[in-house]
C-alpha cells in the first residue's frame, strides 16, 4: 500500500516497540475491564465492605495509568518515526537534486520540485505518526480482546468473531460502491474551489472593466455549488459510518441480549463473565472501527508517497568528473566531439555535434530561440553530460578531469545571476573567492561599475541584499555577476547575453567588461548583440539542435548563408 516501501525502511526496534506498546495496550484494556467488573461484583453482589476493594481500586488505577502511558508512548514513537522519515526523505531528495545535472534541474517546473520537497514530505507525517501505529495497535488489541472473551465465555467470543469481518467488509464494499461517484464530485469540487482564487487573481482586471461587484455573485454561487458537491461526497462517507455504527451497535446489542438471557433464563453464566463481556464488547468494536478510519488516513498519504517515490527512483542524470587536475596557466582548447544530446521532453535531438574552440578565441552562438544555444553552452560548461560523444579539454575527456579544477577557471554570466541572502561583498566573493582580500573585492566591484550603487547603499559593500537579491534591478544584478568574474579572472567565460531591457549604461559596461576579461580568456557567448557577433573569431549558427554554419562575420557574409539572410532581413526592418 505504501509506494515508499523499499525506499524508507523502518528500524526493527521501532516496529518491536510499537508491537510491544500494542500488546501492553491490550493488557491494560482487558485488565481495566476485568477489574471494574470484579469491583462491582464484590460490592454489589457479594456485599463486601469498601475496604475490601481498596487494593483492587489501586490496581485498577495502575491499569489506567498504564493505558495512558502506553497511549503516550505510542504517540511518541509515531511522532519520532515521522520526524525521522521526513528528515530522511528530504535529505534523499536534496541529495538526488544536487547530484543532478543543471539541465535536468532547469527542465520541467522547479515549482513542482519545491512542492514535493515541502508539501509532499509533510503529507507523509500522518502516515508514520498516525496510520502505522494505529494499524499495528488495531490489529493486535481486538485479537487479544477476542481471546479474553473466548476464555471467559465462548458464546460471546463466537458472536464477536462472526460479526468482526463485517466491519472491514462493509468499509470495502461501500468504498467500492461510492468511489466513482466520489471521483466525479471531486472534479467538480476542484473546479468550484478554484473559482475563488481565480477571481482574486483577476481582481485588477475585473476592476478595470468595472465587473468586480458582479463577481461577488459568482463567488457565492460557486461556493454553494462547492458545498453541495462536497456534501454529496460526505453523505456517502457519513452513510458508511452509519452502517458501521449499526453493525457494531447490533453486535453489541446481540451480546447484551445473549448474556442477559443466559443469565436469567438458562442461568448458564454468572454475573462476572456476563458483565465483563458487556464492558469488553465496546472496546472491541471501537478498535475495529478505528482500523477502518486509519485506512482512510493512510490512503490520503499514498498520492504524496507516490510522487516522492517517483522522484527518488528517477534515473540519475548526474555529470561525471574525474581525478586529473586541469592546468590553469592558460585556457584549454575546448572540443565537442560527436556529441549527442536530447531532452526528456524531446524538443529536439542533438546529434553529431562537432565544435573546436582554440584558447583565447571569441565564439558567438547564434540562432532562433529553441535552436539549442543554451544547451550547447551547458554542455561546454560541464553542466550537462553528452549522452554520446565527448567534451575534450586540451585533448582530455572532461569526465577524467576534477570538478574543482575545471569550475575554478570558469565563469558563467547569465541573465539571472543568483544572489543569496548576505552582504554585497559576500555575494561578490562567492565560493572559492571567499578568501579574497577586501581591496580585491572593492576593485572588482568598481571594475564592474558598482561604485555608484555602493555609494547609495546604507552600509556600502556590507549592505545585506535580500533573499534572491531583491532590491537590486536587473542591470545591477548583472553587474554583481560581472564583479564576481573580475575577482575570479577566469580562463573561460560563458556568457548568455541579455536580449532586451538593459539600460544604456549597463549595456556599455557589459561590453567593456567582456573586452577586458576577454584579453585573458576564451569567451563563448550566446550572442544577441551585433557588436559581439561581428567581432567573433567564430560564429556558430544553430538551427533545431544542429550547427548549420560557422565562420567569421566576413566569411559568412561572403557566401549565401542563413546568417547573411538573417542580416539582410534585419537591415531591411531597420530601414523600413
Amino acid at each position, binding site marked *: 500500500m505504501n509506494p515508499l516501501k523499499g525506499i524508507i525502511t523502518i528500524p526493527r526496534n521501532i516496529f518491536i516497540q510499537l508491537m510491544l506498546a500494542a500488546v501492553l495496550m491490550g493488557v491494560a484494556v482487558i485488565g481495566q475491564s476485568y477489574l471494574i467488573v470484579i469491583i462491582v461484583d464484590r460490592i454489589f453482589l457479594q456485599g463486601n465492605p469498601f475496604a475490601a476493594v481498596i487494593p483492587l481500586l489501586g490496581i485498577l488505577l495502575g491499569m489506567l495509568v498504564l493505558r495512558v502511558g502506553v497511549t503516550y508512548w505510542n504517540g511518541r514513537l509515531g511522532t519520532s518515526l515521522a520526524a525521522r522519515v521526513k528528515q530522511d526523505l528530504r535529505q534523499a531528495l536534496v541529495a538526488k537534486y544536487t547530484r543532478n545535472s543543471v539541465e535536468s534541474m532547469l527542465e520541467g517546473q522547479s515549482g513542482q520540485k519545491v512542492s514535493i520537497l515541502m508539501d509532499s514530505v509533510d503529507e507523509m507525517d500522518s502516515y508514520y505518526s498516525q496510520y502505522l501505529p494505529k494499524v499495528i495497535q488495531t490489529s493486535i488489541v481486538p485479537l487479544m480482546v477476542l481471546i479474553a472473551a473466548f476464555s471467559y465465555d465462548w458464546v460471546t467470543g463466537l458472536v464477536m468473531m462472526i460479526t468482526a469481518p463485517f466491519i472491514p467488509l462493509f468499509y470495502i464494499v461501500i468504498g467500492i460502491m461510492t468511489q466513482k461517484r466520489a471521483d466525479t464530485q471531486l472534479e467538480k469540487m476542484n473546479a468550484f474551489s478554484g473559482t475563488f482564487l481565480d477571481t482574486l487573481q483577476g481582481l485588477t482586471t475585473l476592476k478595470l472593466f468595472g465587473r468586480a461587484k458582479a463577481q461577488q455573485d459568482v463567488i457565492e454561487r460557486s461556493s454553494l455549488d462547492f458545498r453541495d458537491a462536497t456534501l454529496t461526497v460526505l453523505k456517502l462517507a457519513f452513510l458508511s459510518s452509519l452502517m458501521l455504527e449499526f453493525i457494531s451497535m447490533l453486535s453489541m446489542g446481540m451480546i447484551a441480549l445473549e448474556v442477559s438471557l443466559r443469565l436469567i433464563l438458562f442461568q448458564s453464566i454468572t454475573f462476572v463473565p456476563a458483565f465483563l463481556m458487556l464492558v469488553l464488547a465496546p472496546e472491541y468494536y471501537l478498535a475495529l472501527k478505528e482500523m477502518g478510519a486509519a485506512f482512510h488516513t493512510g490512503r490520503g498519504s499514498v498520492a504524496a508517497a507516490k510522487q516522492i517515490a517517483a522522484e527518488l527512483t528517477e534515473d540519475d542524470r548526474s555529470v561525471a568528473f574525474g581525478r586529473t587536475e586541469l592546468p590553469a596557466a592558460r585556457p584549454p582548447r575546448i572540443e565537442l566531439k560527436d556529441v549527442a544530446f536530447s531532452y526528456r521532453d524531446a524538443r529536439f535531438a542533438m546529434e553529431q555535434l562537432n565544435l573546436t574552440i582554440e584558447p583565447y578565441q571569441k565564439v558567438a552562438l547564434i540562432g532562433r530561440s529553441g535552436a539549442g544555444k543554451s544547451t550547447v553552452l551547458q554542455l561546454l560548461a560541464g553542466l550537462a553530460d553528452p549522452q554520446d560523444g565527448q567534451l575534450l579539454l586540451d585533448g582530455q575527456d572532461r569526465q577524467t578531469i576534477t570538478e574543482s579544477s575545471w569550475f575554478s577557471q570558469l565563469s558563467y554570466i547569465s541573465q539571472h545571476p543568483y544572489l543569496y541572502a548576505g552582504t554585497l561583498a559576500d555575494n561578490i566573493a562567492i565560493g572559492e573567492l571567499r578568501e579574497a582580500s577586501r581591496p580585491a573585492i572593492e576593485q572588482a566591484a568598481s571594475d564592474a561599475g558598482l561604485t555608484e550603487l555602493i555609494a547609495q547603499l546604507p552600509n556600502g559593500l556590507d549592505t545585506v541584499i535580500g533573499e534572491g537579491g531583491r532590491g537590486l534591478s*536587473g542591470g545591477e544584478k548583472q553587474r554583481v555577476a560581472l564583479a564576481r568574474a573580475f575577482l575570479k579572472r577566469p580562463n573561460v567565460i560563458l556568457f548568455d547575453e541579455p536580449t532586451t531591457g538593459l539600460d544604456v549604461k549597463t549595456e556599455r559596461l557589459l561590453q567593456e567588461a567582456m573586452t577586458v576579461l576577454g584579453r585573458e580568456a576564451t569567451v563563448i557567448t550566446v550572442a544577441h548583440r551585433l557588436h559581439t557577433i561581428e567581432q567573433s573569431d567564430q560564429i556558430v549558427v544553430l538551427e533545431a539542435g544542429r550547427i548549420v554554419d560557422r565562420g567569421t562575420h566576413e566569411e559568412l557574409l561572403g557566401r549565401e548563408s542563413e546568417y547573411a539572410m538573417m542580416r539582410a532581413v534585419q537591415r531591411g526592418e531597420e530601414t523600413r
Partner: protein
Amino acid sequence: MKELMGIFRLMLHQKRDIVLSIIFGVLAGITAVGLFAASGFLISKAALLPPIQTLAVLIALQKISSLTRAVSRYAERYYSHRATFTILSDLRTTFYKRLEPLVPGIFAKYRSGDLLARIVGDVESLQNTFLRVVYPPIILVLVFLCTIFFVSFFSLSVALVLVFGLILTGFIIPGWFAYREQRFARSVRARRGELSTEVTELFQGYRDLKIYQQLGNKEAELNAVAARYVAEEKRNGLHAVSNLALNTLATLVISWIVLGLGAYLVADGQLDGVFLALLVMTSLTVFENAAPMAILPGFFEDSRHAARRLDDVVEATTAPEYRPFELAQAPELSTEHVTFTFPGQDRPVLRDVSVTFPAGSKTAIVGASGSGKSTLLQLLLRMYPADGIRIEGTPGQEINPEALWKQSNVVLQQNHFFYGTIRDNLKLASSEATDEQMIEALEHVGLSLLELDDRVLEKGENLSGGEKQRLAIARIFLRQTPLYLLDEPTSSVDALTEQTILQHLFARAADATLLLVSHRLAGLETMDQIVVMEQGQVVEVGTYADLMAKQGAFYALKQVEQSVFTPDQLVR
C-alpha cells in the same frame, strides 16, 4: 478571541443548521450514555433474576436508543458540515467584499504573488472554526449537563465528581494547551518559512551554486534547516501527544473516582448496588464527548492566526466619497513633481517626474526595464495613491478610480483571463457586445483562428504569451473610450502582426488621449511625443525627429536596440 468576532457573526446566519446539528449532536451524545447506562443496569438487574418482562423492556429501550444514536449521529454530521460549508461561502463573499475596494492599491504593499494563495488558505482554515472550535464545547457541556442531571437522581456526590470532570477535561486542560500551542505553532510556521526560502534558493541558484562549487555547502545548510523544521514539528507533535494523554488520563481517573465513590456509597448503604454498574458505564461513555477537546487548541490557534492575517490584509480602510467624474472628450493628463516609493522599499521608483500629456495626444514612454515606465502609467491610472497627478485639471485624489477606469481602455503587462470561454473573457469588457463584434475584434488582433466557444483555462494557461496579449487588446476593441493607457501591449507579438494591430488601435483611438509604454523604439516616428525615462526620472521629452537630432538618451537607446540581433522577430 476578538479576532474571531467576524466569524462568530457569520455563524449566526446559519442558525437553523447549527441548532439542528446541536439538537442531533446532543441527542446522539445522551442516547449513547443512555445505551451504556442501560446495559450496565440490565446486567446488574439480570444478576438479580428479575421477571422476564422487565428485561424485555430494558432490551427494547436499548435497541431504540442505539438506533436513535446512529441516526442522530448521521443527522448531526450532515447539518454541522452543511453549516460549515455555508459559512465558508459567506466567509469568501464577505472577505471579497472587503478586499475588492482595496485592489489594486493593496498590491503595492503586498507585492508577492502568494498573497492571494495565502488569503485563500486562510479563509479555508477559518471554515474549521465552527466545527472544531465552537461546536465541541457546546455539545460537551449540554451532554454533560443532561448526564449530570440524570446521575443526580442516583447520587449527588457522583454528579459533583462529573461536574469536576467536565471542568477539567472541557476547559482547564484544553485552555492550558491552547495557551502553550500559540508559541509552538508560531515557531513551526517560522521554521517552515526558512526551509521554503532555502529550497527556493537551491533551485533558483542551482547553476551558480554548481559553478562556484557551493552545492555541497548549500545541501548541508538545507539539511540543517530541514532538521530544525522537523524538530520543531516533532516538538509540536509531542505536545499534542501529551495533550491527548493528559486528557485521557483525566477522563479515566474521573471514571475511577466514580467507581470508587460509588463502591463506597453502596458499601455504606447510601446507594443501591444495582446502580453501580450503571454509574460506571455512564461515566466511561460521557467522556467520549471530551475527545474532540484534545484537538481543539490546535484548530483554535490556526483560526486565530488566519483571522488575524486576514484582518491585517483588509485593515479598516474606508472608501472615500467622490464627486461624479465624467470625461466628455479626450482628457489632458499631467504629473507635477511626482515621487513614488513602494511601501516597504527604500529606493523610490519615480523621482520628481513632471510631464504633460495634452488632450488627444499620442505619447510613447520608453526606457530600460526598471526605469519606472509602468509605475508612471499605473499612477496616472490611480492604481496606487500619489500626489501631483492631474486629469483634466482635477487633482488625482479627488477622482474616483473606478469612474476613471470605466472611461479608459487599459492593457496592462499582466492581464488576467478567467476559467471559461473566449466569449466569457471578451464579454468582461462589454456585456452588450454581440458575437459579430467579438469575432471582428478577434480578427483585428489576428486571432480569427479562435472560436468564441473555445475553452480558456485558469489564468489563461492554455494560451501563449502573444495570444494573451492579443486577446487583451481584443477586449479593448469592444469599448470606445476617450483615454487609452497601454503597457507594452505587444511585447510578445511578432513585428508584422504588431504593426497591423497598432494601426487599427491608432485608428480607433484617433480622437483619444493615448499613452503607450513601448519596449520597442521602431515605429515611434508618428507619435506626438516620446518620453524617455531612466532610473525613475524623465530625461527627455520630444518628437522622434527632435530626439534623434539631439543625439541624447533616446538616440543612445536606439543605438542599443539596433545592435541587438533578433532572428526570432525577423523570420516568422
